[in-house]
């Protein structure tokens, strides 16, 4: 096919493929395209050279811009994962993830939406701390979702007419189960990042070493966490396993009695203590605004 006869869709498809082709380790355009053809030829078929830049060099401007943009966006969204796997491995992981899972959304905000699933299928990129890394990715993605999730009108408590009601949880509450205390770790990492921004190189290096020690010392621990929003800021709230299960059941649409049953089904809590526990949980969730009026049907 002559280049002038090439259809719009074909030009765009070839160009996007070349732009999204991973860079070399030196962050330059690879000499070979995905299909093994010289990238120089691929570029020359689509792009005109000028008196300063070859077709290949012009393509490289877009190829580099693409990768700098998506790598930066992923790093901004997952500083905890970066701290766990380290800079070199984070770069390799990001490159592999974005090659396998390029953006399918009009917004860069969604870039990391498939990272947990991908990392689960490609554990070598975070080995030997894969489980810790998976926890961190789950937490960091929850943070992103909670930050701009919808907020429904808060449920106004009134004498219950329904003795066994269903409750709606605020969309900005995410319930996640963790195997490591990555919530504390992430809070620490972000605090150190803020300090590093204003500190000298020596202080920043000490902070980095401290972070590495902390990560190396993480011990497994079952954590039941709600990631939620208060006054437009994202917070983490640990809770008892039973309270977590109760909220999960309510989110699934179970009635109060069924949710309580699910929460305490394999619990060692004495039955006599359950009513008081339920009351205190509901008071707490209500004061946090987690219980919402039902969303209007779309």
């Amino acid at each position, binding site marked *: 096919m002559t280049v002038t006869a090439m259809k719009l869709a074909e030009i765009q498809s070839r160009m996007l493929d070349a732009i999204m082709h991973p860079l070399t380790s030196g962050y330059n355009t690879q000499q070979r395209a995905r299909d093994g053809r010289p990238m120089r030829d691929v570029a020359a078929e689509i792009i005109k050279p000028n008196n300063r830049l070859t077709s290949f060099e012009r393509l490289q401007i877009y190829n580099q*811009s693409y990768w700098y943009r998506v790598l930066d966006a992923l790093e901004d969204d997952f500083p905890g994962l970066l701290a766990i796997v380290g800079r070199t491995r984070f770069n390799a992981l990001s490159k592999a993830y974005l090659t396998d899972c390029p953006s399918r959304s009009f*917004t860069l905000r969604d870039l990391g939406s498939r990272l947990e699933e991908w990392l689960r299928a490609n554990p070598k990129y975070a080995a030997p701390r894969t489980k810790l890394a998976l926890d961190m990715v789950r937490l960091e993605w929850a943070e992103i979702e909670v930050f*701009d999730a919808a907020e429904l009108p808060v449920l106004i408590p009134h004498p219950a007419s329904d003795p066994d009601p269903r409750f709606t949880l605020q969309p900005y509450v995410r319930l996640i189960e963790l195997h490591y205390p990555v919530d504390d770790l992430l809070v620490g990492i972000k605090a150190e990042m803020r300090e590093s921004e204003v500190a000298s190189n020596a202080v920043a290096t000490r902070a980095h070493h401290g972070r590495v020690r902390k990560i190396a010392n993480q011990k497994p621990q079952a954590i039941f966490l709600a990631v939620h929003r208060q006054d437009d800021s994202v917070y983490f709230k640990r809770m008892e396993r039973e309270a977590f299960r109760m909220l999960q059941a309510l989110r699934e649409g179970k009635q109060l009695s069924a949710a309580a049953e699910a929460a305490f089904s394999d619990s060692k809590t004495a039955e006599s203590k359950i009513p008081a526990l339920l009351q205190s949980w509901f008071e707490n969730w209500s004061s946090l605004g987690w219980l919402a009026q039902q969303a209007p049907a779309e």
Partner: protein
Amino acid sequence: MPANRFNGFTDYGVGIGLRIPHYRHILSRRPVVDWFEIISENFMIDGGRPLKVLDQILEQYQVVQHGVSMYFGSPERPNREHLRRLKQLVKRTNTPWVTDHLCWGSVDGTYSHDLLPMPYTFEAVQHTAAKIREVRDFLEVPVAVENVSSYAEFHASEMTEWEFLNEVAEKADCGILLDVNNIYVSSRNHSFDPFEYVNAVPATRVAQIHIAGHSKFEKYILDTHDHPVIDPVWALYDRAIERCGPTATLLEWDANIPSFDEVHNEALKANRYLAKVEAVR
């Protein structure tokens, strides 16, 4: 300011882009600003702080929506979810017009998140104009398309960039967001006369003008929005408003963002040129 059907018959002055580092200053000091341009995608969300800040801004200021991901030139039809969210935001902001770029950036739902230049072909004109019409009909507000800065030209092109812009605007019957910095950047990268471009644009379709700074490299210029506007770009702006009349003008500053006052003062330099045009009208 010349009100026309492409900017909702409004009479806006000189605005700046609404950016996070300035939120606190704007909300606490309430500076006098003609209008703010928002990046639509930053607010096409369900809730949280961004929308609350936007609502506070809307109480006091005029806001115009500028998009970065509609990709009028991409091969696929507009994404319905994208359109639905955009329209929701249009209702929230009451933006008199909506802008996005005359470019492409996705294929079959895979996104580059870049503003890629179009091959300037008649096929692309038809395709792009049809998509702009579809978006405008769905949103029910005027749409203006922005010329992008570019670093590549295609063998397949059958016309100049400004001929392409004019053809598309004519076929889509849409407005133009004329970015004079982008014209300057592309003119240096592709060795054309930027005044020829400005002189060729149909003045009656210009809804808005963008000004910005850029970065120079050894062999090309990159549109980085991280510097003040340089004199040659002001000269293009001067010529543009001489032709179009005093048009709604916006300074873009997106990286290494200085203080609110520094950005606003840079934008207000436009008033020197606008006053000159007003004086002779």
